[in-house]
C-alpha cells in the first residue's frame, strides 16, 4: 500500500470542514484498497473467529426453529394476556434497525450529502439482513409458516382475500415492498463495483461469478446514464418508505385500543426511533470494520461525527415521544391512560421503563460533546447502549401495555422462555453471519462513489 495512506486521521484535527475522504487518494488507490478486501485480503484471523462464532449462534437459531416447528409456538413465552412477546419486540427492533440503510441511501442521496457515499453500501446490506431477521418472527409466529403465503392476495380456492382492515396485513405489504426495493437498490448500486471486481479477479471462478452478477457492465456513457436514472428512481421510491414502513409498523399498535398503544404520536416517534437504532447499528458495525480492514480513510471521523449527530437528533425526538406519553396520560384525564403510565413506571415491569430512560435518553446526551463524538471506543459503547435501549423500548410498549389492560381479572405476567432468548440471540447470529459473508465477498464500500469524492484538478472546489 502507498505511503500516503499512513497519514490518515491527521487531518481531523485541522481547522475547516473535515474531509469525508482522507487526502492523498487517487482513483487507483481507492479501488485498490476497497477491492483488495474481497479479492486479496482473503481469510484474516479476525474474520474466521468472528464468522465461526456468528455461524454457531446462527446454528442455535436453526435448532430453535426446528424445535419450534416440532413442538409449536407454545415453547415461547407469549400467553393471555401478553399475546405478543419477543417475536413482535424483535420484529420491530430489526425493522427499525434497517431504516438507517434506506435513509442513508435514499434521502441523503436526494439531499446530495456526500458523506453518505462511503457508508451507504454496507448500511444497505445491513438493511437487507435486518429485514431478513425481522421476517423470521411474524413468519414463525403464525405457527404454521408453511401456510404463510395465505398472507398474500392471490386467486385461491377459498375465494378469500386477506383482511384489508387489519394493520398486520398492511405490515405484510409495507415490509415486503421495503425488502424488495432495498434489495433492488442495493444490487443496482453494486453493479459498477461488481464489474470492477470482475476485472480485477484473478481466478476464473471469481471472474465468472462477479461477471454474471455484473450483468455485462462495461462502464460506457450509456451505462452510466441508465445507472443514474435507475438510481434516482429507486431513491425516489425508497424515500417515502423510510417514513411509511415504520409508520405502518406503529399502526400495529396505534390502531389497537390498548392504553399505551392507542396514541397518535406513534408513527413519528417510531420512525425517529427506527433511524436512531439504525444509526446505532451502523456504528456498531462500522467501527470494528474500519479498524479491522484499515478503512479509516473512507469512514473518517467526519462520518462518525455526523452519525452521532443524527443519533442525538433522533434520540431527542424519541425522548419527546416518551415525554408526550407521560404528558398525555396526565392531560387526557383518562383513567386507563393514567393507570397505564403508572403501571408502566412503577408496576412489575418498572425496571424496564427506567432502564429504557437511562439507556435511550440520559446516557446518549454525552453526544452533545464533540470530545465524546471523537472518542471511538465511547461511541462504540454508546451505539450498543442505544441498541439495547431501543430493544427495551419495544419491550416496554408491548409487554407493559398488554399485561394489565382494562379488566383486572385478565391481568398476567410475561416471562420469555429460553426459546424466546435463543430465537432472539440466534437472529443476531444470522445477521452477523450475513454481514461477515458480505464483507468477505463484496466490496463493502462503494468504490465508484468514493472515487467521485476525489478532488478534481479542473473546475470546482474540493468536492
Amino acid at each position, binding site marked *: 500500500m502507498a505511503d500516503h495512506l499512513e497519514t490518515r486521521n491527521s487531518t481531523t484535527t485541522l481547522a475547516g470542514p473535515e474531509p469525508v475522504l482522507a487526502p492523498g487518494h487517487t482513483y487507483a488507490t481507492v479501488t485498490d484498497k476497497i477491492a483488495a478486501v474481497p479479492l486479496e485480503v482473503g481469510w484474516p484471523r479476525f474474520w474466521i473467529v468472528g464468522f465461526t462464532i456468528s455461524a454457531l449462534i446462527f446454528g442455535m437459531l436453526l435448532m430453535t426453529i426446528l424445535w419450534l416447528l416440532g413442538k409449536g409456538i407454545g415453547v415461547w413465552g407469549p400467553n393471555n394476556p401478553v399475546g405478543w412477546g419477543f417475536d413482535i419486540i424483535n420484529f420491530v427492533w430489526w425493522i427499525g434497525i434497517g431504516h438507517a440503510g434506506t435513509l442513508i441511501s435514499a434521502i441523503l442521496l436526494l439531499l446530495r450529502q456526500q458523506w453518505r457515499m462511503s457508508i451507504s453500501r454496507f448500511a444497505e446490506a445491513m438493511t437487507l439482513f435486518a429485514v431478513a431477521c425481522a421476517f423470521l418472527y411474524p413468519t414463525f409466529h403464525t405457527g404454521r409458516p408453511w401456510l404463510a403465503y395465505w398472507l398474500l392476495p*392471490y*386467486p*385461491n*380456492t*377459498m*375465494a*378469500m382475500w386477506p383482511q384489508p382492515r387489519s394493520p398486520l396485513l398492511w405490515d405484510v405489504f409495507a415490509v415486503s415492498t421495503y425488502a424488495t426495493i432495498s434489495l433492488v437498490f442495493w444490487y443496482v448500486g453494486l453493479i459498477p463495483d461488481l464489474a470492477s471486481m470482475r476485472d480485477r479477479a484473478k481466478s476464473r471462478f471469481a471472474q465468472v461469478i462477479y*461477471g454474471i452478477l455484473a*450483468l455485462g457492465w462495461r462502464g460506457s456513457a450509456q451505462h452510466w446514464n441508465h445507472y443514474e436514472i435507475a438510481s434516482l428512481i429507486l431513491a425516489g421510491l425508497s424515500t417515502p418508505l423510510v417514513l411509511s414502513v415504520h409508520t405502518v409498523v406503529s399502526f400495529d399498535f396505534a390502531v389497537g385500543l390498548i392504553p399505551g398503544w392507542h396514541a397518535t404520536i406513534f408513527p413519528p416517534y417510531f420512525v425517529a426511533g427506527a433511524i436512531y437504532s439504525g444509526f446505532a447499528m451502523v456504528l456498531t458495525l462500522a467501527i470494528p470494520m474500519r479498524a479491522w480492514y484499515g478503512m479509516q480513510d473512507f469512514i473518517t471521523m467526519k462520518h462518525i461525527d455526523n452519525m452521532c449527530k443524527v443519533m442525538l437528533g433522533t434520540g431527542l425526538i424519541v425522548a419527546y415521544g416518551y415525554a408526550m406519553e407521560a404528558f398525555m396520560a396526565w392531560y387526557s384525564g383518562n383513567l386507563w391512560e393514567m393507570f397505564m403510565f403508572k403501571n408502566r413506571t412503577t408496576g412489575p415491569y418498572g425496571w424496564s421503563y427506567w432502564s429504557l430512560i437511562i439507556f435511550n435518553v440520559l446516557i446518549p446526551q454525552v453526544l452533545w460533546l464533540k470530545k465524546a463524538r471523537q472518542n471511538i471506543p465511547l461511541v462504540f459503547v454508546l451505539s450498543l447502549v442505544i441498541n439495547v435501549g431501543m430493544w427495551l423500548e419495544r419491550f416496554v410498549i408491548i409487554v407493559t401495555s398488554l399485561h394489565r389492560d382494562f379488566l383486572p381479572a385478565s391481568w398476567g405476567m410475561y416471562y420469555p422462555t429460553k426459546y424466546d432468548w435463543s430465537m432472539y440471540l440466534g437472529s443476531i447470529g444470522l445477521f452477523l453471519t450475513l454481514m461477515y459473508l458480505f464483507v468477505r465477498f463484496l466490496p463493502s464500500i462503494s468504490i465508484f462513489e468514493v472515487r467521485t469524492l476525489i478532488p478534481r484538478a479542473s473546475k470546482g472546489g474540493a468536492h
Partner: protein
Amino acid sequence: MSQIFHPSTNTLSKVSIVSVVLLLGGLGYGLLALNRSPYVARTKIPFDQPVPFSHKHHVAGLGIDCRYCHTTVERTASAGMPTTETCMSCHSMIWTNAPMLEPVRQSWATGKSLEWTRVHDLPGFVYFNHSIHVNKGIGCASCHGRVDQMPLVHQENTLYMEWCLDCHRHPEKHIRPRDKVFEMAYQPPANQLELGAKLVKEYKVQKLTDCYTCHR
C-alpha cells in the same frame, strides 16, 4: 486478458430475462390450475364401492325418489344413508340370488352395516346442513350433479370454499322453486336471475358469508 464470457452470452442473458418471467408466470398459473384440477379436487372420479350401486339404474331407470333412501335430507344436517333394510325392501323379492348383492344379504344376515366409501367428504372443520339448503330451494343436482346419470357416483363439484361462497354470495344464480328441488333434470328458466331474486326474497334467503356460518 481474454474475454470471460463467450459472445453468445449476450443472447443468453436476453433470453433468460424473458424466460424467467415466463417461467415464474407459468409456474404460478400451473400451480393454481393444478389445485383446481380433477386430480387434486377428486372430481369426476367414480369411487369403488362394496356393492356397485347404480344411481343411474335406480333413479333414472326405476324412478325412485332421492328421499326413498336419503330419508333425513329435509330434516337434519345429514342426508342420511339407507339402512340395509331399505335395500332389502325390494331385494328380498327381486334379484334375490344376484351375486353382486351378496354383501347386502350378508349385512342383512349379520346385522353389520355396509361400509360405503364416502364420496363427498367435507373437512371436519366445515359445518354443513342438508335440510336448510333443501328447504331454501337448492336442488340436489345443483351440488351433486346429475346423479341420475351416474352408474357409480362421483363428486361433481370441487367442494372448495370458493365454490361454496359463489352460491352464498349469489344465491339467485342457483335457487329454484321448492317443488323442483328433487327434480334431477330441472333446467333453470331463461329469466333465472329474475326468478332467483324473487325466490330469494320469498324464501327469506340470507346471504350468509360470515366465517362462523360454516366454521363454528
